[in-house]
Structure formats: C-alpha cells, structure tokens
C-alpha cells in the first residue's frame, strides 16, 4: 500500500508600488500600482489567472470527476484570496467548487504569508486565526493540518501546532535532519506527543515544480508514465509520497508549452494504474499511518534553495533592518485599534517583500536568480521602507489620537466635553503632515482640535488583535 499526498500552495502578495520619500505623509496607498510593470497587483493576478489558475482548476475539476480516488490538498494565503475576490472572482468560485467535492483538503496557514512565528508568536497566532475565519467563511471548512510560510518549520512551531489542536504539520524532508531515513513515512516532531509531521519528498516534488521544463535535465522531457514509475518504485520502502509544490508551477512557473497541463491531466491515471496505489488528503494520511521515528529540527528549515533556511528572507543587512522595523511596530500598531492600519501593517509582513531584497546571488551579477518585480534588491528595500515610514507616521498620529480619546473617556464629567463638533480638517490629514524626519514625541501637548475630535464618535471595528 502506497498513497500519494499532493499539496499545492496558492499565493500572491500585495507588492509595494514605487513609493518615494516624497510620498511619505502624502499617500497612504502602497499597493495600488497601476502601471504596466509587474508591481501592478491587479494585472499580475489577472495574468496568472489566465495562465495558471483558470486552466489548472478546470483540469483538476475534470480529474476529480473522472477519478473518484483522486485527492489533493490546497493552501491559500489570505492575500491571494482577497485579490481573487477583488480581481478574479470566478477563480475563487472555481476553487470553491473543487473544495465542495469533499476530496480537496485546505491547510491552515498564516493569513498574510508571513514569517511572524519567528518574530512574534502572538502576532502569528492572530494571523492564523484570521486565516481560519476566512477559510471558514469562503469554504466552510476548518483546517486541521498546518503549513507555514515557505514551508518554514522548527520544533517549537510543531509544538505550537500540537498545543493549538492541529493533528499534523508539513515540513521539508531534508537530508540534514532525516539522515539515512526516508521522507516517505510519518514522523513525530521532537518535543511533541501527538502531532505528526508530513515530509515533502523534494526529489519527486521538484522534478515537477523546477525541473520539468529544464532541457538540460537527463530525464527531460518527463512524461506521466515515467513519473508514475518513479512513484511506484517506493512500494515497499514507504507509505506516503508527499508532493508539495507551488500551485503556480502549473502554467506560470512551467508554461503551458512545456506540456505541464498534459502531464497533470495524465498523472492521476498513471499513478492509479498500479493496483496498490491511491491518493490521500493530509488528514487521511495522518489518520492512516503511525509515526516511524522522530524528526528533530532545532533550526529553521524551509523549502527554499539549496540552503533550506531563512537566509533568502533575512540573510542580509537590509532584510534584517526591514524585518526589525516591521515587527518593531507591533505594540503601537495594535494600540491604534484601527483595522486599516493593522491590516496594512500585516500586508507588509508578507514574506515576498523581504525576498525581493535578497542579494545572495547578486555578486555573480545573476540578478535574475530570484524573481522580483523590482529592478534591484535595493529598489525593493527603498520602496518598502518608505511605505513603512509612512505607516509609522499614521500609526503615531493614531496612537496620539487614541490616547487622547481614552483620556477624554476617563474624564467624562468634564463639562468641556459638551463642546460640539465644528468643521475641522479630517483627522487623518490633520495629523499626517509632520515632517517625516521628526519623530513624534511620546506625549505631545494636547492640541486645540483634539478636544473636538474626541467628541466625534468614530468607528473602530472589533480588533483582530484580541
């Protein structure tokens, strides 16, 4: 008995437009590029929808209809779901149809495709909960198996998942931690007693995700029969072959003319041809098999490049600086209790922003080694930091406003409270004007208009942070 557990990750970030120093304090839209460049989020989502999401979902639906045994898993970032809703609602519907078959499992994730677990566990938890609510709302399911951004993983993350009720977690099946052992079994994360870890078979996964169109590869062109043979060869030395990859491998990373869609269309049938082989979702896999040993990962493990660590996101000075600046805002951002500010801050936590700043291979002049919509990692950093600086200004004024409001609430009996609202500047623009280089003092003097503002009841949504 051998089962195959395919898992496709669906994600698009909100790319930061070219945001200049002059825009700080003037423009509070960071993600609304409308140029012809790859910073235009709407344009990208619509392009990838045509190239990947629409044709792939059509094939996946056909396969589910044709093969009752076919099963797979999906994970979505909240940022891609929001963009589908806004720019390609039919794509979202087609995903809902897949999930409605009951044979497509959705995994838990962070809403903002962030690395929050490694910088702020409380913030991480809030994003996981936000994601869970969104998945429930759109698909009416509750994920039981967790996967973290970029498949990043560490023992304490597995422990967190166990403590928070997840039955499984996904990770890279990396030789450094497996040793002689096979990724094709379930393992128990070190320090845990219930949760099981599903390990990516990176050889078979990357054959499709990375090597499929590589004409220099010995096995090119790969057809579904050969691939099924490779999978079947694990009969006897494994229980589950876990194929984890970016959903966009189909049609976007590997273009249609590589034959990737024909491959996908033929794959379930060739795999099922072997009498003792079938498909399982992550939950089914976890429920079917016992663990065979311990998987002990004390340092961060990811599915990225040959280092399999976080250095593509936090390896250089500008990445560290941008991450520190972002997570350093947490207390103040939450203090504002303003939904739009908190949501914008979270959009800036998406790991892609930091990936665009990676300079790992740029010493070889190979600037295209990493896909990035920016001309250089430095341009990415400048746009990001300027946007973050603007957000810091907005947060500072909102905190000042909040403190003033709370004070006012405390002195409700103050007769001056009766002062009625007069026409004043909108609060946002009134407080957004200070020069960006001057940090606002912690306790600025109360200004005349703050009294007036305090009298205006303004709407604050229930905080995500609670």
């Amino acid at each position, binding site marked *: 008995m051998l089962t195959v557990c395919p898992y496709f990750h669906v994600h698009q970030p909100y790319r930061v437009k070219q945001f*200049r*120093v*002059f825009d700080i304090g003037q423009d509070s839209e960071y993600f609304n590029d409308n140029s012809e460049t790859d910073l235009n989020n709407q344009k990208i989502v619509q392009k990838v929808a045509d190239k990947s999401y629409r044709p792939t979902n059509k094939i996946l639906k056909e396969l589910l209809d044709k093969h009752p045994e076919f099963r797979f898993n999906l994970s979505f970032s909240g940022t891609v779901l929001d963009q589908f809703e806004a720019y390609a609602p039919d794509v979202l519907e087609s995903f809902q149809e897949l999930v409605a078959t009951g044979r497509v499992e959705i995994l838990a994730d962070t809403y903002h495709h962030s690395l929050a677990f490694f910088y702020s566990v409380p913030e991480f938890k809030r994003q996981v909960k936000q994601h869970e609510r969104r998945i429930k709302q759109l698909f009416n399911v509750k994920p039981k198996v967790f996967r973290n951004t970029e498949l990043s993983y560490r023992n304490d993350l597995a422990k967190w998942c166990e403590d928070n009720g997840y039955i499984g977690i996904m990770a890279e099946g990396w030789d450094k931690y497996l040793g002689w052992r096979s990724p094709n079994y379930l393992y128990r994360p070190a320090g845990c007693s219930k949760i099981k870890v599903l390990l990516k078979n990176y050889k078979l996964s990357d054959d499709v995700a990375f090597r499929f169109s590589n004409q220099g590869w010995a096995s090119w062109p790969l057809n579904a029969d050969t691939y099924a043979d490779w999978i079947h060869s694990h009969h006897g030395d494994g229980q589950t072959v876990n194929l984890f990859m970016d959903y966009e491998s189909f049609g976007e990373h590997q273009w249609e003319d590589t034959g990737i869609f024909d491959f996908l269309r033929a794959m379930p049938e060739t795999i099922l041809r072997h009498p003792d082989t079938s498909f399982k979702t992550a939950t089914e896999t976890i429920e079917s098999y016992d663990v065979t040993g311990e998987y002990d990962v004390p340092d961060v493990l990811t599915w990225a490049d040959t280092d399999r660590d976080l250095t593509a996101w936090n390896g*250089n*000075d*500008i990445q*560290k*600086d*941008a991450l520190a600046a972002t997570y350093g805002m947490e207390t103040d951002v939450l203090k504002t209790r303003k939904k739009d500010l908190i949501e914008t801050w979270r959009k800036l936590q998406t790991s892609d922003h930091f990936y665009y700043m990676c*300079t790992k291979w*740029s*010493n070889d*002049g190979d*600037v295209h080694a990493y896909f990035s919509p920016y*001309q*250089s990692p*430095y*341009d990415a*950093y*400048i746009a990001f*930091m*300027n946007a973050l*600086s603007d957000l810091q200004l907005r947060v500072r004024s909102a905190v000042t406003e909040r403190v003033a409001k709370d004070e006012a609430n405390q002195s409700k009996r103050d007769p001056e409270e009766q002062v009625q609202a007069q026409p004043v500047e909108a609060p946002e623009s009134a407080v957004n004007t200070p020069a*960006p*280089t001057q940090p606002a003092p912690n306790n600025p003097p109360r200004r005349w208009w703050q009294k007036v503002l305090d009298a205006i009841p303004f709407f604050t949504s229930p905080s995500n942070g609670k």
Partner: protein
Amino acid sequence: MRVLTFGWEFPPSKNGGLGVACFGLTRELLQNGVEVIFVLPRTQSTAGDARFLFADQARLVKIVHTDVSLFPYQQSGSRMNIIVGYDKQGQPIIESRTIIEEAHRFAHQASLIAEEEEFDVIHAHDWTSYLAGVAAKKTSGKKLILHVHATAYDQAGGGSVDPQIYKIEKECFEQADKVVTVSEYTKNIIVEHHQVAADKVHVVHNGCDVVEPQRQLPILSELKKQGKKIVLYHGRISIQKGIDYFVKAARRVVDVNPDVVFVVSGSGDMKNQIIELVGEMGLSKNVLFAGPLWDQERDKMYQAADLLVMPSVSEPFGLVPLEALQHGTPSVITKQSGVAEVLTHVLKVDFWDIDEMANQILSSLKYPAIRKQMVSEGKIQLRSISWGHAAQKIRLLYQSLIQYVTTPS
C-alpha cells in the same frame, strides 16, 4: 608576444580614467608575460615597468614640421601647448595646436616608430591614438586593436556630436581588426552610430585595484558634527557628466532634508554655468565647490562623503563609483554607464529622472542599513572586477589575431 601600444595619458601625471585604465591594463599584461611598448605623445614621467617611447623626443621631433596638410580635417576648438622642438640654446619651442592636429602628428610619428620597432600586434587607446594605431598598421602590416574608452557621442552628452572626432572614429574603426569597448553600453553606441559590425567588437570591462586604501584624517568634521550628510560629485564639470541633473536633484533633496550638503569636486567647461544654476536654485548654502581634488585630497573627500552620485548622461565605464566604494562610500549611478553592468551593489537611475535620483539620495541617507550593505557587499564584488580579468581577455584577443609570434621571447 610584444605589443605596440599607443596612449594619450599615463600616471602619475594627473588625468582621468583613460590613464588609470592604461596603467592597470599594462601592469597586468606585463604580469601575464606580454611585452608592452607604450608610446605616449609627450615626454613625461611614468609609473610601472613597461618600456615607454615618447613621440616628442628629439629623434622624432626632427620630422615634426612635415605633413600637417596630409590630414585635411578642420581644426577643432580646443588647443594645447606642445613642445615641437628645441632651439640652439636647448630651450623648448612651444606651439599651440588643436588636439586633432596633435593626433595627426602623433600618427605620423607612430608610423616611424612602427618601422623601427619589432612587435606582433598594435593596440591603440582612445580616439586621440586611433590615427597612430592605423598609421602603425599601414607601416607594419600588423593587426590593430582599437580600444574605445569614450566616443564623440559620450562627449556630446546628448548635444551635437563633434563631426571631426566622429569621422576619425568611424574611419579608424573600419581600419581596425578588432575594436574593444569598455562596456556593452559603449558597444551598442558604436554598433548603432558608427556602423561597426557587432562581431568585430569585444567588451572588456575596466577593472579596479583591490587595495584597502589608507584611512585619511577626517575632513568636513564640523559639518558632520552639525548632523549634515555629505553627498559627493567627483568628475569633470561638463555636460557629459550630467552635473546639471545633479544640481536639480539636489534642489529636490534639500526641499525634504535641508541637512544635506552637496560637494562638487572637479572643474570643467560648465563650471560657471553650474555655479550660476546653483545660485538660481537657491542652493548656495547646500552646494560647495571644492575645485579639482587629486590624490590624498580626493581620498579624504571620498572617505568623508556619505554617498557619491555619478549622474553621467553617457558614461562608457565610470571608475569613480568603484574608487568611492574602496573608500567605503556607496553610490547612486546612472543607468547610462558601463559600470552599471558590473556593479550590482549601487543604486541605479536614469539620468533624466531627477525625482528618482533625489528619492534614492534621500532614501539611502535616511536608512543607514542600505549604505552599509552596498559597501560591505560591494567590496566583495570589487574583487571580481579586476584589471587582471580585463588583461586576460585582452591577451586572448591578441592571441586570436596573431598567427605566430615573431618577436623573440
């Protein structure tokens, strides 16, 4: 293998990137076992181990007064004082000539030198030596490489191209067996504007010496104490170098951050115009003219600066950002430069995009992490941009042109 090389300037005399490039390449070629005879138009002291010939020395000066009319080009505007000979008392006879006249004279002398010397291949640097290279080829029948450090199009900086220089360039490229350019950027110019066949053109990027320069005594410390940031321009003050865009970007910068001081190091034909522009734009307090800085003075300025800007309109290569980097100062450079092809740890901008230039200046001053990283990673990258690599490519090119070496080794 012996190469007869023609150049126009050579260290230690004070000069621009051309002399630095000739020096770096020659040194590394000698290291690689290539014998270099370096011919310069005027007697000067020289650095390094090549054998030098000077085209104004007595034995050559004899023929100096002949044949100027052989070359029918009009005289170009710029003039230079040349020692054309010596009177009976041994005093030099000085004549004022245009550069074009002098380039022709250099060519005439080159043909005489080519008759006297034994060599395998000819290599001529920059347009002022192209005629000399062609003359030496005609005399000796040896293969000729012309090395393009700049073109008439760069000098024009988007304005009108000097027709005489263009004519020399175009005709000489036709005569050459190979043309070397210091960047893809320059290759594109000569393929497009001089109609040189692309497969005749080889790109050999300039290099940079990997030495950790001495730390100099700090300067401008009073400004720094006041919290000012120093942004440096180092180069000729001419239209090609884009200094006017630099001043306009400075205005945008100072509007946002008045604590930025712009230092202009250099002199040139646009100096008065730029001083006026600075006054007009109300930047007199923020733009300092330091005059041309050399040697230690220049190094001190590199080290004092927080950022260097190379705003060139058209820069075949551009050594200045590499020099600044050695001194620990990061750069903003224009995309219209050859060095942009080899240096990734810099900020790159189109010369006309004043807003973005100002944004990059302001952002890199605002976020110290970006400057720190451009320097730390840039210095690592410098190691791969060496004169040794450039010389290796040149040597292979020599070999490809020579059927067999005739000079004794």
